[in-house]
């Protein structure tokens, strides 16, 4: 019924094996490969770019400490995203996200200030609507919509059954549609 999960590549598996034996260089390759994804997952979960990079580093530290427990039958990406999601939730418990001015794109020469302002406002509405979702549904949505994980990978990352992935995504999308329908996008 559902598409099969993707697997960890051969060179990545070699890095993981080396890193499990204490090779920092190999772990650095893993960090380089998954940095963008982990930072994005944390950022979409907590909506704060200042928190996101710190939390992403913390996620990689935890991954290093728990690398001995990683099982190759899971995709490494799913495993490291699971750690990143936990770190993001912990970070949100510790401190409230700030208004993230650095995340705002600068106005480009091609668009008018009004168009830029409107685009910025719509992006902020979407960001806020995502942040208003319950963490469990938000995590499923972030992994699907922003990281393009398939359902099997999301199930691995969140340690939930496939049916629950589907129901959480349906719930998250329903909530987002309701929230955003109050401010429909002009197209």
């Amino acid at each position, binding site marked *: 019924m559902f598409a099969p999960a993707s697997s960890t590549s051969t060179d990545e598996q070699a890095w993981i094996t080396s890193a499990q034996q204490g090779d*920092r260089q190999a772990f*650095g390759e893993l960090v380089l490969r998954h940095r963008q994804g982990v930072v994005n997952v944390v950022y979409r979960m907590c909506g704060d770019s200042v928190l996101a990079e710190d939390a992403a580093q913390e996620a990689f530290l935890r991954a290093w400490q728990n690398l001995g427990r990683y099982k190759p039958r899971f995709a490494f990406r799913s495993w490291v995203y699971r750690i990143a999601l936990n770190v993001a939730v912990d970070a949100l418990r510790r401190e409230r996200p700030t208004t993230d001015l650095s995340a705002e794109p600068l106005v480009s020469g091609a668009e008018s200030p009004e168009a830029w302002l409107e685009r910025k406002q719509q992006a902020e509405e979407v960001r806020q609507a995502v942040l208003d979702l319950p963490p469990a549904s938000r995590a499923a949505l972030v992994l699907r919509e922003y990281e393009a994980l398939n359902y099997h990978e999301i199930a691995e990352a969140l340690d939930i059954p496939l049916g629950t992935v589907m129901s959480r995504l349906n719930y998250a999308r329903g909530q987002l549609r309701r929230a955003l329908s109050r401010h429909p996008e002009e197209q």
Partner: protein
Amino acid sequence: MSEHVLDWIGAYHDGELHGDRLRRVEAHLGTCAACHSELAALQNLAVRLQASPPMPARTPPEQFVAQVQLRLPPRSAPVPGRQRVRQAAGLWLPLGALALWAFGQAVLVVSGLALGVAAVPAAIPVVLPPLPGLGALPLLVALAQPAGWGGWLALLALNAGLTAAVAMLVWGCLAGWWAARETSLASSGLQAG
């Protein structure tokens, strides 16, 4: 018209359906305006979500990796088989000795209570009925009975010697374990650096 497929539209939109389920949803979407409109709404939502900008890079990738590597605590490599056996022995030997010693003490206390009563007649003529459980301690009885108080003193000296031996063994093993751990940490730190 077939039954609505609202629960499956999200999975269809995500490209997660295959086989018979996919064919049924596709067939239904071709005939049902409500479900088709639901699919369009999901596609529109996906466009809006994607329009939300990703996080701007604050730290260059190489710098990020270097920062992570600097924060990594040292982690020792897997322990070879022989060393693992030595480490296990270093832990279980003193624990086993301690358990044996505790058992011996318990036996001594119990037999002391019994023999204290039973051995006294050698010095002070008191007649006691036979005590249940004494049959389990023939050695102690044999040691204590003929010698009287002398036997007891010998037993106490033996006990003190055994206690000292066990204490030395436990402390020796603990010191060995601590020294091995320090050496292992130092060598892993050197490798990591």
